């Protein structure tokens, strides 16, 4: 699948909705671009956020054939966490995709 912003946004919101069903968190069933992922206004606790990041990395690999680590030095050292909302998370993923080194198979 091509990694357009729309496709990545769909994948992240779908992942959140499924997480909401699994964990019985009704706020996540209607997840959209402005849904908070981190901080006091987020329905996710820290363990859920770890789960979400692992799940997104897994789907980036399975669905888009992208080997990307989201919890990088780059993400953790930012003043504003890229995980504060679905939208900022998707923007961050797009940034990583655009700056990623091509893998040997891609060359």
């Amino acid at each position: 699948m091509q990694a357009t912003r729309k496709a990545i946004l769909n994948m992240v919101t779908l992942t959140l909705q499924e997480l909401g069903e699994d964990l019985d968190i009704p706020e996540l069933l209607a997840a959209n671009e402005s849904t908070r992922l981190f901080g006091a206004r987020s329905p996710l606790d820290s363990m859920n956020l770890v789960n979400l990041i692992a799940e997104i990395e897994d789907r980036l690999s399975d669905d888009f054939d992208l080997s990307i680590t989201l919890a990088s030095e780059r993400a953790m050292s930012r003043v504003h966490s890229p995980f504060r909302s679905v939208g900022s998370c998707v923007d961050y993923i797009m940034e990583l995709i655009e700056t990623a080194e091509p893998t040997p198979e891609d060359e």
Partner: protein
Amino acid sequence: MSQIAFITGTRKGIGRHIAEHLLAQGWLVAGCSRKESDLEHPNYRHYTVDISDEEAVSATVRSIKKDLGPIDVLINNAGTASMNHLLLTPGSTANALLQTNFLGAFHCLRECAKQMSLRKSGRIVNFTTVASALNLEGEAIYAASKAALESLTRTAAKELAPYGITVNAIGPTPVDTDLIRAVPEASIQKLIDHQAIKRMGTRDDITNCLDFFLRKESDFITGQIIYLGGVTA
């Protein structure tokens, strides 16, 4: 369905023995080392990777999932040793030991635990050494790198327990492998004299302990370091 184990350092020695042991039990085994392996088995797949390379480990763990399926068990066996008086140990040697023995193991643990956390199940077994428990002279940096791995084992056990993942470690006594081949016989004997049971370890002693950690019934065993031969910390 066969369970899937990822074993680091399978080209020779203990890692190779563990791979053959699990293959004989019907496991699917992904092995890795910095060089190619001559281990051939229909259920074995080898990946050439330097585990101190973080991105290469991430890519390898994802490849294993695509090639074989999600990893059930990680066996962090790969390690390197250097015996020397600490006053004669170059910083580059210390750095290389920490890169493989600690950081490499950490990279594998983190990436495999991510996969395991999604399935709420997994077993991780790290390899330490009795040299750490015994604070052996001449092995300061090797023992320190494994002590760091022991600390990681205990803390990871707590952080990963909510995801159904156990993390334990095995501390073998000297076993006849390339790792100790260059060590003088007198030094090996001195080490064996510290053990309650005074003999060299065997590869089967190690797989016996490993089997215990991997048993279905061992899901309440985590954060434990088992030293063989009756060595106590």
